[in-house]
């Protein structure tokens, strides 16, 4: 059974040899092949090579073109710094003043420097493992993108100070993300992940107004293009689980502070993906801790559940911990 078959069976709630492993690896993967972080997020060849290395060595069931939040923002024209072995940094938001919105020009995914690099990664994945391993592209949620362009703190107060302005910005972001998602599916992505981290910091009623409708539109476009949709909101999303279920996502990630069983119940037909503590369990725990946490998450998540740490696998995670997760999934699958 290959990883594509494994995922499609699992999504239908049917028996598979084991639950898929969807750990998100970025910094870890770059350093695993001895490359500085900037090479990973600036050069698709390095990103692909790193993904293929961890795919095989840790028995993942996905390859992922996720790298950092600033692909779209950079192509919008934001000034982003790329430290040699650090994460990209945006020191001054592109929309420092509300009036700057008038000058905002939506980038074309194929022409944009950093967005097109992601399309190249997906094409290369297609050549290497297409049809065998699910290939995941990535977009920012409209609210997350708005925060990337405006700065998180500014956007948080904008929600109260200038709601119409925020709506206008969200419209522009949504159109760009839809175009980017479509281009990635056309390039060969099986799944489009959507990151909307900032959505865990706002009240449920604001999520319903400022995040959910835009997630729904982006995911509708993903489905129309023939892809699967994965929603990723890190942080404590306990209060918005039922809203997230209405996003249209096929797979929904939850962070470690969310109850896996409650999430699985709230999500219904969508697969819950998660959710042990990436830091306390994966980075700092023992292989036994990881094994136990992996099995417990699958037990609570039910027949559609997918395994992953609550968020990115931390840099410096002991390899034996990742192998313990793989072993737990094999043995759990064999017992089912």
């Amino acid at each position, binding site marked *: 059974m290959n990883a594509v078959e494994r995922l499609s069976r699992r999504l239908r709630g049917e028996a598979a040899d084991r639950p898929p492993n969807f750990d998100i690896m970025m910094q870890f993967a770059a350093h695993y092949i001895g490359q500085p972080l900037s090479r990973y997020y600036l050069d698709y060849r390095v990103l692909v090579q790193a993904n293929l290395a961890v795919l095989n060595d840790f028995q993942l069931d996905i390859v992922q073109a996720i790298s950092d939040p600033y692909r779209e923002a950079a192509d919008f024209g934001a000034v982003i710094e790329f430290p040699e072995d650090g994460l990209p940094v945006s020191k001054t938001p592109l929309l420092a003043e509300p009036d700057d919105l008038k000058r905002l020009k939506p980038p074309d995914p194929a022409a944009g420097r950093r967005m097109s690099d992601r399309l190249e990664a997906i094409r290369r994945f297609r050549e290497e493992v297409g049809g065998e391993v699910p290939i995941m592209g990535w977009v920012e949620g409209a609210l997350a993108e708005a925060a990337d362009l405006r700065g998180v703190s500014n956007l948080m107060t904008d929600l109260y100070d200038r709601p119409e302005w925020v709506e206008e910005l969200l419209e522009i972001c949504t159109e760009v993300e839809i175009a980017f998602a479509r281009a990635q599916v056309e390039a060969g992505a099986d799944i489009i992940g959507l990151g909307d981290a900032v959505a865990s910091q*706002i009240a449920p009623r604001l999520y319903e107004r400022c995040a959910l409708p835009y997630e729904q539109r982006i995911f509708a476009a993903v489905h129309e293009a023939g892809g699967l949709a994965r929603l990723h909101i890190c942080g404590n999303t306990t209060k918005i689980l039922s809203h997230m279920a209405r996003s249209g996502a096929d797979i929904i990630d939850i962070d470690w502070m969310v109850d896996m069983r409650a999430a699985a119940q709230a999500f219904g037909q969508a697969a819950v993906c998660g959710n042990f503590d990436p830091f306390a369990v994966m980075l700092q725990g023992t292989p036994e801790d990881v094994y136990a946490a992996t099995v417990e998450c699958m037990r609570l998540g039910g027949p559609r559940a997918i395994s992953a740490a609550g968020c990115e696998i931390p840099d*410096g995670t002991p390899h034996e911990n990742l192998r313990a997760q793989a072993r737990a999934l094999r043995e759990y699958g064999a017992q089912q």
Partner: protein
Amino acid sequence: MARSSKFVAKLKYGKITTFVSSTRIEVSKRMEAILQSIYDGILEGKAKVVPAKVQEALDAGISPAQILNDGMIRAMAEVGRLYEEGEYFVPEMLIAARAMKEGLAVLRPHLLQADVKPAGKVAAGTVQGDLHDIGKNLVALMLEGAGFEILDLGVDVPAEKFVAAVQEHNVDIVAMSALLTTTMSRMKDTVEALKAAGLRDKVKVMVGGAPVTQSYANEVGADGYAPDASQAVAVAKSLIA
């Protein structure tokens, strides 16, 4: 129980006013109403209303200390409570804190004049390499709302800068924040640098940020840890008690 926050706020506020002289009832009622409007204005994030009401309170002869304690600190404590209970989120906290700061700008010269001392002085910053400052900002705002004086060192703060702040500004607490697992180890660098400078016993250290835990705080040798901005207030108070 479905009580509106405003109702709870009024109920809580109602407990703290004590006026004994029957001849001054009318005046005290007016004072009470002004303080209440400062309190409500902060909870509702009204940055234009609060400074005007603070001025009105000063004009009415309410002492700067009472405006601070019964109007502002009490309101920010309620903001913290509502955040912990999941009624307020980051946007509501930010606009409340902004209203509080606007009011404080009007009040500050009068506090100095009346010689009202801050609860303590806190130097706050994100650690070197970390530019995620929303958590640090929320902590600073909540501490300021609790009567602390804040020395905001900003983002990407190297250990030496924390040390210099302690040396130059008579700081009671160093507060460090990190969002990334890759930068949180810098917290230990600051603690070590404080030791090397012979300042470790003169200052308390508190840490926080998404990946930080109590056990990690112990590991780096911090005196206090808080999981969120609201609880940071209680921790800071306990450290200098």
